[in-house]
C-alpha cells in the first residue's frame, strides 16, 4: 500500500533522514521504532507532506505522492494521529470528529453518521463528552478523540505518532487494544513508538531507526526475540537490577 524509497530529509543544515526505505502492506500494523531523535517523527512528517524530502520517492496505492502538499495527501487517503494528540482545544468533541471528515470526497450524511457511530462504539466516553471542548478533556480522552478524528477520515492508511506518550501505563494498554481493534476492522496502520515492547506486541512487522538510518527490520516476533533489541529498546531490566544489587552490597 505504501512504499517509501531512499528518503532523505533535512531540517535546515541537519540531515534527519539518511536514506530510509520501508513498506506497509494492506491490512498490516507496521511499527517504526527508535530512540528520541532517531527520525521517527521526521519520517511521518515526510510521508504526510509536512516536510518535503530532498531525495527519494514515496508511493501510495500506486500513486507517486513525493513532494505533494499535506492537504492533497490527506485527500489521497492517508490520515495522521500526530504526536501530542493535537485536538482543537476550542472546538467541541463533535466538531473535532466532523473536521476529521474534511478530506473525504463528498461523503453522504448516511456514511458520516455510520462512521460516527463506529467511533462512538469504540470510544463510548466520547459520546458522553460530545459537547465538551477539546481543552476540557484529559490526556487519555484527547488521545481517544485524536484517534476517532483520524478514523472519521475514512482513510485507508492511518499513521500514528507516539500514541502512548505521556499516558499512564494503564491507559497505554487501552490505547494499544484499540489500535489492534481498528486494524482488525480493516485499517492499515503505521505506528511510530518509543514503547517498543507494546508496539511489537500488536504489530506484524517492525523497522528500527537509528539516527536517520534503518538498522533493523523483521517480523515483530523475531524483533522481540532479538538480543540487540532486548539490550537497547526493550528495557535493560536485568542490567539495571544488577546495578542496584551492587549498590546494596556497598
Amino acid at each position, binding site marked *: 500500500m505504501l512504499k517509501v524509497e531512499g528518503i532523505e530529509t533535512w531540517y535546515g543544515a541537519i540531515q534527519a533522514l539518511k536514506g530510509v526505505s520501508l513498506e506497509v502492506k494492506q491490512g498490516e500494523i507496521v511499527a517504526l521504532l527508535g530512540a528520541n531523535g532517531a527520525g521517527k517523527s521526521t519520517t511521518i512528517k515526510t510521508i*504526510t*507532506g*509536512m516536510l518535503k524530502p530532498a531525495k527519494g520517492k514515496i508511493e501510495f496505492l500506486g500513486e507517486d505522492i513525493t513532494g505533494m*502538499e*499535506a*492537504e492533497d495527501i*490527506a*485527500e489521497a487517503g492517508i*490520515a*495522521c494521529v*500526530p504526536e501530542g494528540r*493535537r485536538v*482543537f*482545544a*476550542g*472546538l467541541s468533541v463533535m*466538531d473535532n470528529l*466532523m*473536521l*476529521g471528515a*474534511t*478530506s473525504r470526497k463528498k461523503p453522504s450524511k448516511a456514511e458520516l453518521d455510520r462512521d460516527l457511530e463506529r467511533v462512538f462504539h469504540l470510544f463510548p466516553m466520547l459520546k458522553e463528552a460530545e459537547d465538551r471542548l477539546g481543552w476540557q478533556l484529559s490526556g487519555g480522552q484527547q488521545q481517544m478523540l485524536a484517534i476517532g*478524528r483520524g478514523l472519521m*477520515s475514512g482513510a485507508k492508511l492511518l499513521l500514528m505518532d507516539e500514541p502512548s506518550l505521556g499516558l499512564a501505563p494503564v491507559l497505554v494498554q487501552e490505547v494499544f487494544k484499540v489500535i489492534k481493534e481498528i486494524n482488525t476492522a480493516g485499517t492499515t496502520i503505521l505506528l511510530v513508538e518509543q514503547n517498543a515492547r507494546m508496539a511489537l506486541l500488536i504489530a506484524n512487522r517492525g523497522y528500527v531507526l537509528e539516527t536517520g538510518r534503518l538498522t533493523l527490520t523483521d517480523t515483530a516476533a523475531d524483533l522481540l526475540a532479538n538480543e540487540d533489541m532486548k539490550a537497547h529498546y526493550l528495557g535493560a531490566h536485568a542490567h539495571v537490577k544488577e546495578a542496584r544489587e551492587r549498590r546494596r552490597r556497598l
Partner: protein
Amino acid sequence: MDVSTNLQLMTAGLAMGSIYALVALGFVLIFNAVGVVNFAQGEFVMVPAFVAVWLMDILKIPFPLTYLITVVFMGVFGIVFQRIAYYPLRHRTFLPVIIATIGVSIFLKNGAQMVFGAEPFLMHRPTPPDVLNLAGVFVDPQYIVIIVCTLALLVFQYLFFEKTSLGKKMQATAQDKEMARLLGIRVATMIAITFVYSSILGAAAGILVGPIFYVTKEMGGMLGLKAFCSAIVGGFGSVPGAILGGIFLGVVEVFAAYYISSAYRDAFAFIMLILVLLFRPQGFFGEKIAEKA
C-alpha cells in the same frame, strides 16, 4: 449628572466602541490565524476611508455603489497585503514581524499622502447632519448607524463561525494550523479568507467613522493602537473579548474625556490597559496562559 447628557455620552461611547471593536476584531482574527500582531491594522481603516472619499467626492459616485466598491477594494487589498506583507514574513520571529508591520503602516500612510495629498478630507454623510432628538436626548444619527451596522456584522460573523462548516474550518486553522493541514483543510485559503475578512472589517469601520472624523493619513494610527488595547483588555485572542473590550474602551473614553479631562482623551484607553493588565492580566475573557513548567 444629568441623564440626557449621560445618554448622549453613552451613545457616542457605544459608537466609538463599535469602531474599536471592529478594528480589534480584525486584529485578533489575523493574530489567531497566523500569529502576527498587525501594527498596520489602523491603516486598514484609513485606506478605505480615503478610497470612499475619493469615490464620493471626486468621482461623484452615489453612496451605495461607493460602499460596495470600497468593500470589494479592501477585499482585494487584504489578499495583496497577505501576499506582500505577511507571506514573506511568515517564518520570521516576533520582533522583525512587528517592525515590518509598522514599516507597512508607515508606507501606507505616506502612500495615502502621496496619492491624495496632505489636506484632510471630509467624508459626506449618508445620514442627515442634523442631530436627532430622541425624547430629550440629542443623538448624531451617524452614531446610530454605526451601532446598528456593527451589530449586524457581528451577528453575521457569529453565525458564520459557529454554524457553518467553513467557519469551523477557519476556527480549526486558527487553533492549530499544522493539524488542520493534516486533515486536508486548505490552510492557505483559510488564511487568505481571514485577511480578506479582516480588511472588510476595516472597510466597514472606515466607511462608518469617516463622516465623523476628518479623513487624514494619521486617522488610523491612534485608532489601531486603541483597538489593540481593546483586544488585550478583552482578552487577547478572544473574539468576544475583542468586541466587548472595544465597546468598553469606547464608552470609558467618552465619559472620561467629558468628566475628567478632554486634553488627555487619548490617554484613557492606555490607562485602562495598564490597569487591566495589572489586576487581571488575562483580560476579561482571556485564558490564563499558565506556563507548564
